[in-house]
C-alpha cells in the first residue's frame, strides 16, 4: 500500500513553480471484472491505471494539467503546462481565488478490511459459476449473469501548503440478473449490479446476499412475466431501499449540488429547482424527512476522511425534520456562494478535476417496522429495485420505474404486478412522505455510475435508506 508515496513526496518537493499554490493528486487504481453468463465464463477483464493531476493557482486563477508521466521531468512539465494555462486564461477567468483558503492537513484513510485477502480468481469464478448453474432450466429464462467487480484505489494529495492526504480503498460490486421472456414480453429481476456496492472485503458478498440467490431471482423474473400490469392511478407508495436510493439520488442529491445552483452544469447535467436563498428556509419535505451527508459508515461507497480538494469530511444534516439546511457544496462552492456546505469535491480519477458530487447521501431511519409500514396502507403498492430513471434538468419532474411491484390492500401485501412506474415532482413529492422505516429496514447501498461534469466523470456514490411510504402518488404500468 502507498508504495509510491516516498518517491512522490520527493518529486513533489523537487518541483519548481512560480505559482502561489500548487498541488499534486496522484491516483493509482486497479480493477478486476469477472462474469459468468448463461453458464459460460466470459473473458476476465483487468485494468491498471496510474497518473497525476497538477493544479496551480497564479494571481487567484487556477488551472490544471494531468499526466501519466510521473518522472520528475514529466511532473515538472505538467506543472509548467498548468502555469502557462493559468496565465493564458487570467483575463477571462470567472473566479478570483486569492482569498480562497488552502488545506494543510496530513492524514491517512483506509477502507475496512483493506488488507484482507480475497478468494483467488478461480474461487471467485467458481462462486459465480455455481450461482449461474442454479438458475433453473426453463425455456422462458433466456438470459442470466452472475458478476463480480473488484476495484482498488490509492490516492495521494500533496500541496505546497504542506497537506499530505492519503487514502486507500477497495470496492466490491457483486451482481446477478435474470431475464425471462415469452417472445413478446420480457421481464428482468436483479440483485446488486448498479444498485449495490460497498467498501471492504469478501464480507460484502455475504451482505449482498449473492450466494444462493439465483433460484429466487429467476423465480421472481418468471412471476413478473406472468403478472398483470401495474394499475394506473393514485396509490400510497412503499419504496424499498433499493428504489429509495435512486429517489434520494435524483430528487435530493442532484438538486442540492451547489455547482448546479451556481450554474456550472447548465449546459450538461442541468440546473436545480432549489435556489441559494432556499437554504435555511425551504421546507423540502414532511417533518419525517432527515437527510445526512454521512462519510462515517465505513462500508458505504463514499466514506472517506477528506475529499479530493483536501477538506475534512464529517457527518452533517442537509435536511432536518424536512427543512433544507445546507447544500452539497465543497470548499470552492462555499467560497463562491457564502453558504456552509460539506466535503464533497470529488474527481473520478487523475485525469479529471474535482467538482461538487454526491458522496454518501442517506435518509436517517424512522420508527416503523416493515410490517407496520405495510399495515398502515389501505390501498397502495410496494416497489423495489430501480430499472428506469428520468428527471428534468432542474431535477423536479421525475418518472421512475422498478423491476418488482406488489399491490397492498387493507394493510396486506397482495399480488405481484409488472412494469411498476410512478411519476411526480420533487418539490412536492417529499411532502407526501408519511412513514419512515426503522433500522431493521435500513440498507447501505450505492452505485458506481453517477455521471456529471464537463468533461464527463463517473463516480461512486453511497445511499443508505430505510423503506419509506409516500401518500397518493401517481402510479402506472406498461403497454405490454
Amino acid at each position, binding site marked *: 500500500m502507498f508504495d509510491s508515496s516516498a518517491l512522490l513526496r520527493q518529486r513533489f518537493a523537487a518541483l519548481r513553480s512560480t505559482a502561489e499554490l500548487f498541488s499534486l493528486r496522484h491516483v493509482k487504481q486497479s480493477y478486476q471484472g469477472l462474469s459468468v453468463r448463461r453458464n*459460460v465464463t466470459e473473458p476476465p477483464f483487468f485494468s491498471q491505471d496510474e497518473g497525476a493531476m497538477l493544479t496551480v493557482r497564479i494571481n487567484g486563477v487556477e488551472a490544471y494539467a494531468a499526466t501519466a508521466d510521473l518522472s520528475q521531468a514529466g511532473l515538472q512539465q505538467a506543472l509548467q503546462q498548468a502555469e502557462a494555462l493559468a496565465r493564458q486564461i487570467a483575463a477571462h477567468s*470567472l473566479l478570483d481565488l486569492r482569498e480562497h483558503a488552502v488545506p494543510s492537513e496530513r492524514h491517512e484513510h483506509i477502507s475496512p478490511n483493506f488488507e484482507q485477502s480475497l478468494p483467488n480468481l478461480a474461487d471467485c469464478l467458481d462462486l459465480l459459476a455455481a450461482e449461474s448453474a442454479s438458475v433453473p432450466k426453463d425455456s422462458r429464462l433466456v438470459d442470466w449473469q452472475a458478476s463480480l467487480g473488484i476495484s482498488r484505489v490509492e490516492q495521494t494529495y500533496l500541496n505546497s501548503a504542506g497537506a499530505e492526504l492519503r487514502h486507500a480503498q477497495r470496492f466490491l460490486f457483486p451482481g446477478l440478473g435474470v431475464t425471462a421472456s415469452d417472445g413478446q414480453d420480457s421481464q428482468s429481476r436483479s440483485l446488486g449490479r448498479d444498485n449495490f456496492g460497498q467498501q471492504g472485503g469478501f464480507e460484502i458478498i455475504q451482505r449482498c446476499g449473492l450466494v444462493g440467490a439465483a433460484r429466487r431471482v429467476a423465480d421472481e423474473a418468471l412471476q413478473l412475466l406472468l403478472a398483470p400490469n401495474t394499475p394506473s392511478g393514485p396509490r400510497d407508495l412503499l419504496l424499498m431501499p433499493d428504489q429509495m436510493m435512486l429517489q434520494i439520488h435524483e430528487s435530493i442529491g442532484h438538486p442540492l449540488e451547489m455547482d448546479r445552483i451556481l450554474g456550472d452544469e447548465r449546459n450538461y447535467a442541468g440546473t436545480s429547482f432549489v435556489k441559494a436563498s432556499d437554504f435555511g428556509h425551504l421546507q423540502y419535505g414532511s417533518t419525517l424527512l432527515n437527510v445526512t451527508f454521512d462519510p462515517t459508515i465505513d462500508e458505504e461507497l463514499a466514506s472517506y476522511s477528506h475529499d479530493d480538494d483536501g477538506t475534512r469530511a464529517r457527518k452533517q444534516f442537509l435536511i432536518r425534520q424536512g427543512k433544507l439546511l445546507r447544500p452539497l457544496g465543497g470548499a470552492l462552492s462555499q467560497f463562491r456562494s457564502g453558504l456552509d456546505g460539506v466535503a464533497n469535491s470529488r474527481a473520478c480519477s487523475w485525469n479529471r478535476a474535482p467538482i461538487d458530487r454526491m458522496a454518501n447521501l442517506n435518509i436517517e431511519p424512522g420508527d416503523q417496522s416493515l410490517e407496520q409500514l405495510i399495515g398502515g396502507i389501505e390501498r397502495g403498492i410496494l416497489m423495489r429495485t430501480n430499472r428506469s430513471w428520468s428527471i428534468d434538468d432542474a431535477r423536479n419532474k421525475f418518472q421512475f420505474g422498478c423491476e418488482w411491484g406488489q399491490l397492498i390492500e387493507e394493510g396486506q401485501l397482495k399480488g405481484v404486478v409488472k412494469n411498476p412506474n410512478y411519476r411526480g415532482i420533487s418539490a412536492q413529492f417529499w411532502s407526501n412522505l408519511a412513514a419512515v422505516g426503522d433500522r431493521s429496514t435500513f440498507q447501505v447501498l450505492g452505485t458506481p455510475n453517477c455521471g456529471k461534469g464537463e468533461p464527463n466523470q463517473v463516480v461512486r456514490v453511497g445511499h443508505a435508506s430505510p423503506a419509506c411510504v409516500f401518500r397518493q402518488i401517481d402510479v402506472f404500468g406498461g403497454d405490454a
Partner: protein
Amino acid sequence: MSATPQQRFEQLLSALRAALQDGEQFTLGFSAEQSQFIRFNHAKVRQAGEVSQASAQLRLVRDGRQAEQQFTLCGDAELDRQRLHEALEQLRQTLPLLALDPYLSLDDSAWQSHSQQQQALPDTAEVLALVEREAGQLDLVGIYAAGPICRGFASSHGAFGWHQANSFNFDWSLFHANGQAVKANYAGQSWDAAAMVERLRLSREQLAFLGRPAITLKPGSYRAYLAPAAMDEIAGMLGWGGFSAQALATGNSPLQRLYSGDAQLSPLVSFDEQVSGSLSPAFSDEGLPRRDVRLIGEGRGLERLISARSAAEFALTANGADSYEAPCALSLAPGNLPSAQILQRLGTGLYISNLWYLNYSDLPAARMTGLTRFATFWVEDGQIQGPVSTMRFDDTLYNLLGNQLEDLTCERELILSTSTYGQRHTGSSHLPGALVKGLTLTL
C-alpha cells in the same frame, strides 16, 4: 525527439511480438489523446486544464481461453514495456484457471487500415478572444474540448489499424435572464472562426424568442416537430441495446418486436450504421474492419449489430460491431419535408429543439419517457408564440416513428458526440428532424 503516438504503439507491438510464446495469440488495442478542456460559465472560464493520456488493451488467447488487460502508458518506452510484460504475465497466469471459452473468436485476417489527419487546431487564445468578443455580454455556459485522438489495433495474425485525428468540440448553451436557454454546438476537424461566429449568431437569434412569456401545457397528445438534436436523444436510446444481436437474442432489446416482425415502423424510417465517411475509426474495438449495415429498411428490422462473440454464440456472422454492439455512426434516411417549411407544416404544435434524460418505461414495447429541454416553443399557425415550460413525454417508438410519423426533413445534421467519459468519444449520428402527428405529454 520524442516518439509519435504511432511509434509508441509500434514499439509496444514489437515488444509484445518478441515476448510471445508458442501457442499464444493476441490482440492489442491502443487509445491516446491530448485534450484541452475549457469550461465556461457566464461566458467566463470556470475551469481549464490539459490532459495527456494513453492506454493499451491486451487480449491474450491460448488453448481456447482468453483474458484481457488494460494498462496506462506513461510515455517512457522502458517503463511501458515493463507494464506490457506485467500484463502479459498476469494474463498467462489467468488463462489456465479458465474453462474453454466456446464463444472465443479471433479474426485471422491481416487487414491493414491507416487514417491520419493533422489539421491545425485553433490557438487557445483565439478561442477565448472569440468567446469574449461574440458572447461576452451573454450568459454562455459550456465546454470547449480539443486535441488529437489516436486509436490503434494490431493482432498476432498481422492485422494493423491506425486512426489519428485532430478534432474540436465546442458545446454551449445561451441562457436568457428568465432561465430559458438555447443549445448549440460547433465540432469537427477543421476550425473556421467564421463558422463558429455564425453558429453563435443563430443561437443568439433563437434566444430572442425565449424572452417571450413561457407557455405551460396540460398533459395530452400534441402535434410536434422534433429537431435533429432531439432525434439524437431517441437514436441514442435505440443504440442502448436496440440493434444488439445479443440483446435481441435474449429479450433485452427495445426493438425485439420490430426484429421479430410483430411490429413495424413507418415506411419512411430507414436506419443505417453508416461508418464510411464518419469520423469513427475504420475498425472496431475488437479489431474487425467496420462496415456499413442497414439496420432498419422502410420500417422493418433488417440486419443487427453483431460482435465476434455474439456471432459465435448465436451462429451469426460478425459485421464489425464493437463488443457492446452499439452503433457508432447511426444514420436515419432523410424524408421529404424542406426545413424551410417546418413551421408551416407543423401549423399548431410543439417545436422541440432538444430532449433530455430519456429512459424506457416499458422496454419490450419500446415505450420511452423523457423531457423537453432547451428552446422548446409553442407554435400556432406556423408562428412561434413563446417558449414552453419543461414537459415530460411518455410514448412508444411505434407511435413516434410509426403511425404518428408524418414526415422527416430533407436536410440532415451531422451530430458529433460530446461524450468525454473516460476519454473523448468519436461517435456521431446523421439525422433529419421529424414531424409527428401526436406526441403524448404526461407531466
